[in-house]
């Protein structure tokens, strides 16, 4: 994204402003938005709105201004407005972002286009049908500790730190939106997508989980379709290293299982574990 350099002003050196500007933050300028409006079956088209510019304004603020003052019918998902819930995903100037985190003064000057996520079926205006993601989540077996392993558990902080990266995911589905396997090839029916490889990784690497989901992730989740273009990592608002820390380790596990020559010999000599699990000491 093209970003303009912002100079941070220390709080104790905030330039003197008029009391009115301190209250409303109005800068006196305006911003022009081209927002896609309409339902899937009603010829969606861009509508232009002009919104007064406010200091530190994010695109979601501008959309709210439109809803409150210009067009009460404009649909947009949002919840926390603090980049913690991942609801307000959309494409600003063609780039998948969270509307609540995208500052207008970070965008190139000129009109701002706001479109819904392209990969998912349009419902209306900026809202798309993301239900497929919830179906995929249901297909992935849940966290499963060993039977009888009731805790309280002892787990090392290093394990938590590694897992925490995956658990930071706010399910904004920007990674699903940008991934070409879903966006261009429309493989939603045979590809879990980056979000759910992160999900699988968080389960697989939990020290107390005993299931093995690698086979399923390859066979049903289409892990092999990912050719590591890292677009998902680039758009992740939580800065999760999706490709490096989730997808590649899963691919490696799978490769180890099928293509490791030492294991090949091991399988020939001792037979293959029938349940697909890794044998103790087999790492």
């Amino acid at each position, binding site marked *: 994204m093209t970003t303009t350099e*912002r100079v*941070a002003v*220390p*709080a104790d050196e*905030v330039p003197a402003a008029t009391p009115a500007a*301190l209250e409303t*933050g109005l800068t006196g300028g305006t911003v022009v938005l081209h927002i896609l409006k309409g*339902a899937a079956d009603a010829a969606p088209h861009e509508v232009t709105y002009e919104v007064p510019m*406010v*200091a*530190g*304004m*994010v695109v*979601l*603020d501008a959309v709210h201004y439109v*809803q*409150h*003052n210009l067009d*009460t*019918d*404009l*649909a*947009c*998902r*949002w*919840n*926390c*407005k*603090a*980049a*913690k*819930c991942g*609801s307000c995903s959309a494409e600003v100037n063609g780039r998948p972002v969270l509307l609540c985190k995208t*500052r207008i003064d970070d965008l190139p000057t000129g009109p701002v286009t706001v479109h819904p996520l392209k990969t998912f079926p349009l*419902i209306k205006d900026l*809202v798309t049908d*993301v239900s497929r993601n*919830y179906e995929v*989540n*249901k297909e992935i*077996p*849940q*966290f499963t*500790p060993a039977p009888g392993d*009731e*805790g*309280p558990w*002892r*787990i*090392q*902080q290093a394990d*938590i730190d590694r*897992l*925490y990266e995956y*658990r*930071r995911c*706010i*399910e904004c589905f920007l990674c699903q939106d940008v991934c070409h396997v879903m966006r261009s090839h429309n493989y939603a029916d045979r590809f879990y997508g980056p979000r759910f490889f992160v999900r699988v990784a968080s389960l697989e690497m*939990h020290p107390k*989980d005993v299931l093995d989901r690698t086979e399923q992730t390859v066979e049903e989740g289409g892990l092999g379709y990912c050719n590591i273009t890292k677009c998902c990592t680039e758009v992740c608002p939580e800065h999760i290293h999706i490709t490096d820390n989730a997808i590649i380790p899963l691919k490696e596990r799978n490769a180890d299982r099928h293509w490791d020559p030492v294991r090949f010999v091991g399988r020939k000599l001792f037979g293959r574990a029938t349940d697909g699990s890794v044998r103790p000491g087999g790492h």
Partner: protein
Amino acid sequence: MVAVDSYTTIDRDVLVVGAGGAGMRAAIAAAEAGCTVAVVTKSLLGKAHTVMAEGGIAAGLGNVDADDSWEVHFADTMLGGQLLNNWRMVEIYAHEVIDRVYELERWGGLFDRTPDGRIMQRAFGAHSWKRLAHVGDRTGLELIRTLQDRMVHTSGVDVYMEYTLTALLKDGDRVCGAIGYNRNDGGFVVFRAGAVVLGSGGWGRMYRQTSNSWESTGDGAAMAYTAGAELLDMEFVQFHPTGMIWPPGARGILVTEAVRGEGGLLFNSEGKRFMLEYDPVKKELSSRDVVARSIYKEVQAGRGSPHGGAFLDVRHLGAERVKQKLPSMYEQFHALASIDITQQPMEVGPTIHYTMGGVRVDAETGATTVAGLYAGGEAAGGLHGANRLGGNSLGDILVFGRRAGDAAADYARSRRREPKTIDERQVAEEQTALLRPLSPSGDGAGPGENPYKLHEELQAAMQDDAGIGRSEESLTRALGAIQELSVRAEHMRVGGGRMLNPGWHTCRDVTNMLIISEAIVRSAIERRESRGSQWRFDHLEQNVELGKVNFVCRRNRDAMLVVSVPLDPLPERLRPLLERSRFYDPEKLPKGYMTKQRARSAERVR
């Protein structure tokens, strides 16, 4: 009378309203008890307000401070609530939250660890010991994701995402379901259920400076009230001391208490650490009401930051520790305010955060005063009394979500053989009311009122006149504004159709917020004292008699009645526990409380 519009009917044993922590925990409990469950949420799954909780879950595990226990947790919670809490709820809570934390871990939830690998606990305001189980500053997200995964893999639970419920349906005196609409296509839907659980959260959207999402409009409480349930302790609205105050779009966004828990300090514009003066013992980690009022007072005295707040400073902790322990805060200020909190102080001020009041429930079961209706979590009142301690809401939703789900399942199973009837007249009335703002303006009232504008006016009235500080005069003014807005709300009109029309959806939000605002203001008028989060400029002291009662709002035809109900006194066996709190001070006990000594002398007199 027949329905005015078609609707879809969905039958389940238990209907759960809301998919935050309380709703999901209730759904899991009801399904595990063998019931079919429908969970209805206004948003997508996993976006509920629980996700915003940052600090952690308060539980007396004693992993870090061995002296901690459920008893001390009980004492801190009661004293924090100024002893207006329902003591039985607090007792159940302090006991069971420990199991709920370990249960969450068994379901795959992550917690930061102690060096020997146990669940780590952090310090928080007005808790005697390091007590909050947490993971970074994203504990709410962890909790919601863990419950979400557990719930979707529990058989018997179906989730209805992006549906709004607008009214409870009744069969005689009993709740038998609810009506609402699918937000995406605008089609009406009727849920028929043996029991209904409200896990619908709180209400902060009627204030301008709020940390709440658009969902927090009090729908559940408003529906319950309309159906005849009672609302308890509505005057107690928690201002979190530290919300962002600049830039304008970020106003109200929460700055977690964990910032102070990790050692963040508050300064005024003169560079003075003012909390040393207001609470020399607990300092920055005093209870939320005290810190919020202190910042308010500093600003009033002309010692505020440029945008009317205080400075919160973590620079002395070192950049590495800040980024490790407070990563979301680092990111939030960087992205929204262009501030690097390892280099510059944050500007913060009080923001509406939580509502202690709620639907009046039975401590053991979450049963409301209406048969078949249950409530848990923020939607219910009683646990937190006059002020909630940080970390006690994530525990609340787990403990009482589960209990409400269990009790609702019992009730629903006992009613399985009875015929499920829906009163078409109730359906038709609700449909008519819902469709009114979409009909062309034919009532001679001009172009009609914009719901967003009414909402903004309500926010201004509540923020200015029923906010952190109140008086009889300001509250009366707020009540007048609410009454005027309620009349104008009859004439709300919006363009567009029924499909995904936020203007239309806002109309019902406004109606609900007006009901809840009236309950807040009327209760606040009756409580002529300052206690917990209620700060009355015209009654600065605690009143002995008011320390013995809760206020309850009840519907009487179309009027709202406020009645005082006596508190159940703390039983003899629990009295000594209060002394276990590190903040117990016999000289400063909340007024109205019968100490052992006072109770004994009262007995002698008799």
